[in-house]
């Protein structure tokens, strides 16, 4: 989704909006860290993270920070 066409057309799959993404981000990240199927548990998160660079950055940060706490 980094190329121009990808950014213009966005992901086609059903997706959350930014508020919903924020509401479920902590649960999604912990499922990822536990090796569980986060995308099945939180439908629409993956597509939103593909289409929204700001939420994607925050997801990456939370994943790192929460993951660091577990080590």
């Amino acid at each position, binding site marked *: 989704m980094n190329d121009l066409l990808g950014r213009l057309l966005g992901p086609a799959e059903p997706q959350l*909006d*930014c508020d919903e993404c924020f*509401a479920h981000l*902590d649960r999604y990240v912990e499922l990822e860290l536990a090796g569980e199927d986060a995308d099945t548990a939180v439908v629409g998160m993956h597509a939103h993270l593909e289409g929204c*660079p700001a939420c994607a950055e925050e997801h990456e*940060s939370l994943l790192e*920070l929460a993951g660091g*706490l577990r080590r």
Partner: protein
Amino acid sequence: MASVALEYFPATVSPVTVSSVLDPETRAWIDDLRAGREEAVERLHALLVRGARYELGRRRSQLAALRIHDVDDLAVQTADDACIAVLKRLEDFRGESRFTTWVYKFAILQASTAVRRLAWRGRELPQEDETWERLHAPGGPELAAERNELLDEVRDAIRDRLTPHQRRVLLALAVDGVPIDVLAERLSTTRNALYKTLHDARRTLRGAVTERGTT
């Protein structure tokens, strides 16, 4: 493609009650904060400062103009804002994650938003005609012929199918790379409202190229 497939899709959330799932540490956090214990609020703030410092550290290259102690001040400021947000939304916490993970997302949101806004401070948003020029620049040899053709059709749809507001939002976010928080601030709206506009614009574009049989 059925239009329903492009609508927002509510997340699947299992109904859980807080009391049934909380670990002892999280329960203690909630009880102490609900009771308004000052010591708990101080610990919460310290946790948020840690989260904000982490986020600012990750983005240090975007804060080159700031001195170290200014970055630390920014961490405290963003933690202040995050602390207010956490206390305001404490009742929303459903125990679906550790309390610390839930708290850190507020610190990261506040700090990352602050960084994006600082990075664009003093910069004007690109004018639409400048963006159009960039959008019409030759794709170069790396762009295959069919991708160039698709891009032509997308450009036509941007011009003919989108509302002026959708066009402005799409071009700023997808072509100019204006951060969504920055655009929201400049247009006096919210990140969520802008993302919905972007989503609708993208859906229109995808529909237009599908109609033409390109995809």
